[in-house]
């Protein structure tokens, strides 16, 4: 069942109860969870937070912790799985689901007793009607049981059966259409901030988490730019509401959020301009920076902007203040000539006292990198807690560590993309392109993680399209595989599929396709992730799995 008034239908119901919060491993989810935790604390609502990466995690966490609670909040997980079927909860248990994954499971949608889905569906989102997918089966069974007594050629029964078969076919089609594409709804962090605001418990820190959550969705291409703009406008209202005081009216060390135009460059305030441009998906693929020509183009651009190369190669904070101040406008003025029309986008930044400024983008890069830390000493849940810490404004050191991790991650991605292109390793399989990170690649430790792998895939595809002579490449999706070096088992790879660059909306059919291909071939595959476009697959089964995919998609 959908609920829209979160205050009445969610918050008021759980006040005074103990809550189990199951939070997916993504930045938006962690931001949402932090907002909720902060609300719960102000109302003395006791809770337990358990990080969830896979379906198995969900089942384990449920078995471990659910016995003691009657109210479970699922953040960015569980919405697309029939929860009652998967977890077999006792009747008095209620799930509140805030999941940005789509499509939502229809059993969840039509369960009014135990499942409360906290979301507003987008205008373009359609859910199959109840009668099209569910029907009362009693009469049917009855007639089956009594079939022996009645004449076989009972017209009525026959008609009924025919009608039923037809209905079943319809149902199958409807459900297939509904589940064919996976995509994302709006940011859960923003949803939770909205609740905080309605409860009059919002603050700059909570707002910042909402902004980071929303920005993550933009960066990982889970939301379309125009949708992002709409949400940004709302967030901007909150920003001006909470930051309306002039700077000198407030204590120096207070938190300030500013709405401003921002360069689509990764971590440039904490890197050098050249490095940042090289490692940012947008600028690198537009200027084709991994080629000699591209390198030259970059130098030209910088020269035209009047930026001395030496300054652009040193740390950004070491650049002349006058150049730094003009950087945005200089780049903007040359943007069109170099095809960098979208280099500026509407974003937010945060500052406190004399501390350096951080943009929402910085936060997303840093937190995403922390979440998939390559440090062998750290477990996945350690990383989850690091992200939780790094989002706390006062814990700057963790964030800074994340920024360094992110640079390494981006460098690894850049190196890999260059290898793919130099070695012509992006290969067309007909209905899709594919590329494989070779076993033994040292950087594979970075890629054996969902978010980083997705980023590698998107970088690779855009770079490939940018240099490809074939027009068709724009309309082809990409599959990338990489050895799952983080797993204790050997001979397992991660497979990630992304939609073609020509696709406007980030709809992804690989989730369903992977499922069918695995079914058909009986491959040893684990469809464990909540982002269904990523799976784990036995390397031995890879070729037959791909063959099945090709025939399926041709």
């Amino acid at each position: 069942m959908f609920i829209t008034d979160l205050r009445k239908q969610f918050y008021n119901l759980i006040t005074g109860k103990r809550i189990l919060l199951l939070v997916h491993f993504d930045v938006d989810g962690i931001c949402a969870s932090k907002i909720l935790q902060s609300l719960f604390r102000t109302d003395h609502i006791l809770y337990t937070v358990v990080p969830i990466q896979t379906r198995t995690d969900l089942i384990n966490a449920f078995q471990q912790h659910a016995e003691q609670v009657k109210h479970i909040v699922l953040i960015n997980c569980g919405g697309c799985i029939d929860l009652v079927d998967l977890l077999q909860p006792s009747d008095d248990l209620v799930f509140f689901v805030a999941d940005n994954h789509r499509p939502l499971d229809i059993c969840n949608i039509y369960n009014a007793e135990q499942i409360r889905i906290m979301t507003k569906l987008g205008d373009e989102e359609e859910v199959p009607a109840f009668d099209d997918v569910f029907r009362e089966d009693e009469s049917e069974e009855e007639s089956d049981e009594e079939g022996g007594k009645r004449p076989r050629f009972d017209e009525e029964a026959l008609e009924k059966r025919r009608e039923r078969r037809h209905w079943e076919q319809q149902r199958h089609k409807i459900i297939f259409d509904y589940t064919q594409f996976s995509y994302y709804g709006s940011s859960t962090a923003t949803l939770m901030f909205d609740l905080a605001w309605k409860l009059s418990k919002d603050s700059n820190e909570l707002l910042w988490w909402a902004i980071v959550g929303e920005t993550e969705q933009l960066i990982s291409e889970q939301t379309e730019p125009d949708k992002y703009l709409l949400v940004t406008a709302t967030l901007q209202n909150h920003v001006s509401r909470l930051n309306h005081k002039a700077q000198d009216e407030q204590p120096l060390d207070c938190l300030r959020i500013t709405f401003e135009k921002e360069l689509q460059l990764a971590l440039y305030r904490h890197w050098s301009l050249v490095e940042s441009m090289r490692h940012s998906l947008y600028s690198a693929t537009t200027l084709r920076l991994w080629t000699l020509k591209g390198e030259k183009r970059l130098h030209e651009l910088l020269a035209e902007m009047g930026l001395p190369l030496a300054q652009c190669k040193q740390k950004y904070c070491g650049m002349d203040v006058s150049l730094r101040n003009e950087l945005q406008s200089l780049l903007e003025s040359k943007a069109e000539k170099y095809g960098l029309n979208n280099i500026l986008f509407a974003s937010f930044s945060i500052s406190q006292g004399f501390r350096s400024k951080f943009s929402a983008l910085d936060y997303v890069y840093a937190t995403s990198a922390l979440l998939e830390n390559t440090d062998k000493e750290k477990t996945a849940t350690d990383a989850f807690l690091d992200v939780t810490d790094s989002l706390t404004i006062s814990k700057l050191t963790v964030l800074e560590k994340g920024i360094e991790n992110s640079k390494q991650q981006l460098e690894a991605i850049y190196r890999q993309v260059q290898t793919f292109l130099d070695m012509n390793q992006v290969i067309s399989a007909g209905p899709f392109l594919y590329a494989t990170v070779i076993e033994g690649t040292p950087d594979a430790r970075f890629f054996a993680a969902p978010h980083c792998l997705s980023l590698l895939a998107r970088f690779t595809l855009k770079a490939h399209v940018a240099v490809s002579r074939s027009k068709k490449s724009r309309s082809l999706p990409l599959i990338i595989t990489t050895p799952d070096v983080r797993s204790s088992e050997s001979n397992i790879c991660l497979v990630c599929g992304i939609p073609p660059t020509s696709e406007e909306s980030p709809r992804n059919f690989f989730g369903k396709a992977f499922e069918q291909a695995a079914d058909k071939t009986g491959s040893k595959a684990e469809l464990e992730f909540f982002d269904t476009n990523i799976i784990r697959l036995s390397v031995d089964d890879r070729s037959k799995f791909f063959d099945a995919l090709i025939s399926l998609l041709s």
Partner: protein
Amino acid sequence: MLGEKALELIKELDRSKDGQLPTFNEDSIRMVLEEMTTLFEQNQRDVNATVAGDVRFFSGVHLRHAALERNKRCLLAYLYNRLERIKAMRWEFGSILPAEIRANICEPEVQWFSRYNKNLAAYMRSLGEGTGLDLTQDTKPPKNLYVEVRCLKDYGEFEIEEGDIVVLQKNTTHYLPMSHCQHLIRQGILEHVE
């Protein structure tokens, strides 16, 4: 030099100032006791001579006696300071000491410890005309009723007020009543999240 062995014991404790407990040094204690027996026997012989009228032995007797007293002081100080450390551990770890620490204490110390525990428990029970008060709790002034804590190791089920149970599993985060989880924080099972 006299009293050297006994001083070794004291130095041993001095070197481990930070509240650690070195292994109970039975050998050194035995050697000190042997030294004391020797000194005592020599003294008895010489005292007899002194009593018999030969005062030349007085200085030697007196010197040995001072050494005997010194040895005694060192031995008792060794025992006493060890007990102080064991006692401090009672307040930090609770009434059951970690196995690694138990391995470093001797049987009489174990007995002392269990009697100390019993005495302490009896006293705490007697407070408030028999309703009892656990003095090992509430070690910091309360600021909040509830705290957010992070679980640093798998601990299992843990009871908070009136039969409510929380499962403490590594890297899970919880918001719990302060009064219930203080000692788990002190023991390093939970971490208070700022």
